[in-house]
């Protein structure tokens, strides 16, 4: 085996050859067809979310009682104007799905941002400072883990009043413990490394140590975890809106569409099927890309 200098040698700065690593990681990603497909799907979803008013064939709220319960275009009675059919008040399903992408992605990404800020911060403190701080934070993690996340989110969103902001904050605050534990484990491993000791010998303060030296080395784990957690957050937002604690009736969300569709599943099978497929495909794509990202960013490979 060739002898290579470990990345964290004192001689090297805290951010060695990252550019080379990144392009290598991207090339690894591109080689797998499943990942490419996943990435493509994600681009479509993000594009729909961003450009919803222009991408969607119809407005998501226009009702038309004449056109209610139109089946998808390939079934008998379907029309090309409504590729995926219409719902119980005649709204175009495809357009509602496209508009729904917005809420799902927005909530997913924002909730993860909240979790990252809280979880990584606490994980860094816990891992680096150790002792009582560590014990306290880990006990808080244990307490959080004692509740089913969905239940906690349900109870607090209902208590605080359902709104987009509440959902984002509550989902973020019920999902941070994974980041805390992962970051803490990484910090504990990094703490013993030479470059940390060298920096401390050079007189770096604790906060500088954490931010400048320890934190950047945890980035790959955080990125991988965040990607996978966005998928989880989307699933949870869908569950919340399915259960009726969603963000309100102003704009369609996939979970809400499934909830409404369920009541009519005996007469209009397409009502709950397609929004669910949208969720499935989006989450699957994120999971595929995230999984490959994990393999690609793994420094040991």
């Amino acid at each position: 085996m060739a002898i290579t200098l470990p990345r964290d040698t004192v001689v090297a700065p805290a951010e060695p050859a990252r550019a080379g690593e990144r392009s290598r990681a991207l090339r690894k990603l591109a080689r797998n067809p499943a990942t490419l497909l996943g990435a493509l799907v994600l681009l479509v979803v993000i594009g729909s979310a961003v450009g919803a008013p222009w991408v969607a064939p119809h407005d998501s709220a226009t009702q038309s009682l004449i056109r209610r319960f139109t089946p998808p275009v390939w079934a008998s009675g379907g029309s090309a104007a409504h590729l995926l059919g219409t719902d119980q008040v005649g709204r175009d399903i495809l357009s509602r799905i496209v508009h729904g992408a917005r809420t799902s992605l927005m909530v997913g990404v924002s909730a993860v941002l909240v979790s990252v800020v809280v979880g990584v911060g606490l994980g860094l403190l816990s891992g680096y400072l150790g002792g009582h701080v560590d014990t306290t934070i880990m006990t808080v993690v244990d307490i959080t883990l004692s509740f089913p996340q969905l239940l906690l989110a349900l109870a607090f969103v209902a208590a605080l009043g359902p709104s987009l902001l509440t959902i984002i904050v509550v989902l973020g605050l019920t999902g941070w413990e994974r980041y805390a534990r992962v970051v803490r484990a990484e910090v504990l491993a990094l703490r013993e490394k030479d470059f940390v000791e060298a920096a401390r010998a050079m007189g770096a303060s604790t906060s500088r140590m954490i931010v400048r030296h320890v934190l950047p080395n945890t980035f790959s784990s955080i990125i991988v975890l965040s990607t996978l957690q966005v998928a989880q957050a989307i699933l949870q937002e869908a569950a919340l809106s399915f259960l009726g604690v969603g963000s309100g009736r102003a704009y369609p969300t996939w979970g809400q569409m499934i909830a409404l569709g369920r009541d009519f599943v005996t007469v209009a099978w397409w009502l709950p099927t397609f929004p669910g497929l949208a969720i499935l495909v989006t989450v699957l794509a994120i999971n595929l890309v995230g999984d490959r990202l994990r393999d690609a960013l793994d420094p040991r490979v």
Partner: protein
Amino acid sequence: MTALVVRRLLRLVVVCVGVSLVAFSILQVSGDPVSLMLPEAPDSDRDVLRQAMGFNDPVVVQFVRFVGNAFRGDFGKSFFHRTPALPLVLERMPTTLTLTVLAMALALAVALPVGIYSAVRRDSVVDHAATAVVFLGQSMPVFWTGIMLILLFAVQWRLLPVSGWNDWSSLVLPTITLGTFSAPLLLRIVRSSMLEVINLDYVRTARAKGLSEWFVICRHALVNAALPLVTVTGLQFGLLLGGAVITETVFAVPGVGRLIVNAIRQLDFPVVQAAVFVLAMIIVLVNFAVDMLYVYLNPQIRVR
């Protein structure tokens, strides 16, 4: 070993207190509970009720009272049903627990053989198929899975009932739904922990001794691979309870999950509090039991 158990017990107590705090804060955070109880009453009446129920006391006092009452099983009266909250939760507990246990049994029954086979015959058709199924399974919202199963088995083929929880046929779809919710992760854990163990030296030794592959797997590899599985199964319990809430709503199963969802829709917070508290306590106890089981199964931990 005793020191370890004592330490874990202490942590258990602290976690219980923390759980109570979180459950307690649900009602606090909801604004003014008195307005929820008496939405039409004039302010003077509401003030009287507030004082009588102790909502004007400092938060710490209220919390201590809450814990004291919780010990005695008193979570207040449901705003909606006007009967004590805890019995409402407890009488529906067996249903939810039955569903959860059945689902977990189903998930294990699928995950164990498939996971072991995938690990032993790596890169086989079964392995790749299993991986694909895992990815798919982890991406499906559990309520959608339930509705699709209803579509197929109840509406299209008319084999099973759409909802309810009466005879054995109505148990099938909810169990399958909840089972597919937890099976993917279990499968991954079984496969990865078997993979880890199967290449270790002692397994090689067993094979070199001439023992049959089957014996090697069951007696040596599996026992050690079971450890992460035990831990994950315990942790999964919490996840499953969350999934049970959704499944019960989809299939109209009269369990605690549906009670919670209805209570939340009606802003009936004493019931929500009681249910969250009870479920969390069950999870805490299950996790503690799993913890102790792990210590028992893994002698290495005791020495540390």
